[in-house]
């Protein structure tokens, strides 16, 4: 090996060493022969730049972003990645009023929730709760355990995570910043086990509700996905009068 080549090898080794120091890396992929760590190639940046009021992620000269995967590996590139196991779930919670129900119109409301899950084998989001019930008297709005088209005059409560047209409510999941980075899906023929083997919350105009169902998931580590949860209700002529209510909880369960 010539002197020039020796010098070049030492230099590359040194630069590689310096890059790893700067990354504060966590090993992502490895085999007996190689290992890929999180390294930033670019002019600079700061992942969590915070003031007392807000936080931001900053980057300069980022060379590439995106993700790729195959059955055997998954690769994320870009500044918006994290070097520690991460689960961020935010729910636009609060009270959503379906108003006064009627036998001629289907009432609907919607809200959103976001899930971001990094350095994991994926996640599931479950919905837990009951259909709206009449305070203290025991009547709970009827539900269906498979997607059902709302029918005015037929008592039903249901939810889904689809872009519905009748009623016009909801939206398909949004991958942030793009589908190269984020992979969240709405449950479609999802096998929950325990007798729930084909759960679909993505059927347009099809609503259902069964506490404990998985409504969304990702089979891999994923960037942020915004889901829109829509709820509908119809009353029949004999739906007991009164004020109905329920509190639904969304539970994200990542697997690392």
């Amino acid at each position, binding site marked *: 090996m010539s002197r020039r080549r020796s010098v070049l090898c030492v230099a590359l080794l040194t630069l590689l060493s310096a890059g790893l120091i700067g990354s504060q890396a966590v090993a992502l992929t490895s085999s007996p022969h190689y290992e890929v760590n999180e390294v930033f190639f670019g002019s600079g940046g700061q992942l969590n730049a915070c003031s007392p009021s807000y936080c931001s992620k900053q980057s300069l000269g980022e060379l590439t972003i995106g993700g790729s995967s195959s059955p055997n590996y998954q690769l994320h590139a870009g500044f918006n990645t994290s070097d520690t196991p991460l689960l961020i779930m935010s729910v636009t919670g609060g009270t959503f009023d379906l108003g006064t129900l009627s036998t001629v119109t289907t009432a609907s409301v919607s809200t959103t929730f976001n899930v971001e899950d990094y350095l994991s084998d994926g996640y599931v989001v479950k919905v*837990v709760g009951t259909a709206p019930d009449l305070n203290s008297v025991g009547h709970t709005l009827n539900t269906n355990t498979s997607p059902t088209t709302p029918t005015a005059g037929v008592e039903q409560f249901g939810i889904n995570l689809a872009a519905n047209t009748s009623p016009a409510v909801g939206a398909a999941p949004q991958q942030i910043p793009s589908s190269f980075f984020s992979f969240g899906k709405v449950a479609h023929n999802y096998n929950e086990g325990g007798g729930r083997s084909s759960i679909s919350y993505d059927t347009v105009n099809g609503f259902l509700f069964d506490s404990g169902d998985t409504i969304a998931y990702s089979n891999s580590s994923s960037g942020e996905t915004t889901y829109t949860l829509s709820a509908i209700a119809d009353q029949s002529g004999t739906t007991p009068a009164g004020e109905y209510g329920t509190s639904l909880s969304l539970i994200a369960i990542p697997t690392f």
Partner: protein
Amino acid sequence: MPSVIVMLESLRLYIKAKMPKSKLLYRLKNLSRRATYLVVAFSATSIMIGTDIGLGASASAAQLQSRSLSVSSSALGNVTTDVNGNTVAAGAGGNGQKTGETFTFNIATTSNLQTLLIEYCTNPIANTTCTSPTGFTAANVTSVVSQTGWSGGTWAIDSSTVLTGSPYNCSGSSPGRTNCIAISRSDPSTTETSGNTVTLGFGGGASNYITNPTTTGTWFARITTYSDTGYATQVDYGSVASSTTTQINITAKVQETLNFSVGSTITAPGGGCTAFSDSGALTLGDSNGALNAANTFYNHSYFRIATNDLHGAVIQYSGNTLTSGGNSIASIGGSATAPSAGTPQFGLAVDTHDTESGSGYSFTSLSATSPYTGGNDGSATSQSGSSGSLGGTYAYNTGSTTSPVQIASSTTPITCDTGSVMYIANISNTTPSGLYGTTITYIAVPTY
């Protein structure tokens, strides 16, 4: 090796962008003179890297695989009621104060495990400072409620070992550790095999529970297994994440509805529970509308009701007996009485036999009220007629003019019920002649 290729290609781009080739070679020559120092520097760097990527765990600890934490509720730790204000049961989705947790993971290292420690922190990195999530407490965990997949022995809460102070992050003295769950095993001789999937469940009960953080956000549970009883020799390590969120409260109102009508001509209700719309007039008597002492004359009127009132409704009548000026035909009385031709009587009762091919009497939710349950003209279709020996029993209360009297009732919402009311009239040979009549008003009273 696609990932390696990506990394090296990117590195080469970085070099080209930052430094001209000639300048680079010049600096490399200088660097070669200091090769010894560089080797030393790289070695030191490698040591630093090794520390970082090991997540701070013991050098010999392997990472638990396929780790997950399933919580019974993502509600905040101060949430115990739903939007209606009703208390949510411990372990249910809407109760963040009394939750349950189930850990699932695969054993990474074949070993005899004797103790296991779970630390709840705001970051997942082992052997770093653990800040307990705000409001979180595991101090009320009194037992291991479930454990599956283990090769042997039984895990139980370790309430005697003190785990405060470095290297532990447990606050509170045992057994009231607020951010830790420590368990030990009754049979440490059993070997747990690498790859074995195991679970551990905690809380979820009224007095045995975990309280979620009281602020929204992500929190972590650090799981460490040990091969000794003193929580000193780490075997496997892994952290899992969970999150508390605000709840989605959905409310709706259903207004009370009551559809009630009366008539004397039967019509089918159809799918919409069609109301009666005729005048409601009816006649008791022969073809000339005259009563006689030899027969009991009868006729029917109908009422139809639909209501969503939770506790149903009652049907009442109000009116006088048959009168003509200052004369009247006596009420049959307030108790169920069979009609008697030749005796002045006026009465009524619900005729449960008057089905009129599906359009007459049809009670699903309602039931007739005694003594008005026995109307029966012996036919399912005849609306009016006479008989010298009419069957059934009837009653009438003239006090209903001031205090309406109940004739039928339901305690549940009524989809569409039709009632057939049968009236009977008898006169004696001394009943004064005249045009007798009365107006009977039916009242539906919903029960809230």
